[in-house]
């Protein structure tokens, strides 16, 4: 039983690594599209984008992505003198402000919502593409 338990733990660890890799890939894909949509004046907001390192808790793995997070919150817009965290939310939420296409308000929320359908397959591929899966033939279904 000990060996069986150990094997399950081994499999679980590799699945978690796959999930972590999948979340990072997903976050980067969402951010890639968001970078197309984010409005640009001085470029300060666009340059404040980040995909954070995965965070593990007892029952979850999360990857945070966004603008004006952490150290990048203090980037200063050279035109207004404001730090980016003072206006990032406003640019995101004011949907009646004109922006030249393809930039727009909701430049993070919309790409994230549109990615919902692709998240499962990305995670599945990341798990199945792990070194463990290749070595053992382990397959995760979507």
């Amino acid at each position, binding site marked *: 039983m000990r060996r069986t338990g150990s094997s399950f733990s081994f499999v679980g660890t590799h699945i978690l690594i796959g999930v972590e890799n999948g979340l990072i890939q997903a976050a980067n894909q969402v951010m890639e599209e968001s970078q197309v949509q984010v409005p640009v004046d001085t470029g300060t907001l666009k340059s404040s984008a980040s995909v954070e390192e995965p965070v593990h808790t007892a029952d979850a793995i999360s990857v945070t992505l966004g603008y004006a997070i952490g150290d990048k919150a203090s980037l200063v817009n050279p035109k207004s003198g404001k730090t980016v965290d*003072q*206006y990032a*939310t*406003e640019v995101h*939420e*004011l*949907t*009646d402000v004109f922006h030249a296409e393809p930039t727009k308000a*909701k430049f993070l*929320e*919309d790409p994230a*919502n549109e990615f*919902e*359908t692709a998240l499962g397959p990305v995670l599945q591929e990341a798990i199945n593409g792990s070194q463990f899966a290749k070595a053992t033939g382990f397959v995760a279904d979507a």
Partner: protein
Amino acid sequence: MPSLGLEWEICTYLNSQAVASFGTNLFATQLPDQPDTGVAVITRGGLRPVMTMTGGGQPESKFDRPNIQIRGRAEASSFADGNDLMQAVFGALQGVVETTLRSGGPLFHLIYALQSPQYLGRDEKERHQWSQNLNVWWENPQR
């Protein structure tokens, strides 16, 4: 079943809950420049509809999951009024589960806030601005 559209359904509900007065300080689809203090309900993107198979080989759109944005504004000297209004809208909509919002209206499975009301700062007339986003799961009668 008659359809008023999502924004109208939500506004009608908020009006019935005495949160705000539809057409006076509560608006659908856009927040007009006047009055200074008011809120608007605006449909904005969201998640894909949930599909089911009917058994006849045809998929059926079971329910829609759009986002709604609540845009709020208050005159320069009335931050508290605007903040109270946004919190009242939040309180009325957050956690609506398996109910109709009016007699004979469509079924709402769930409404949940994506975040608490966010203060956006002042507009060009120094008025305070807020935004909040909610995801709505509802049986769109137009499907």
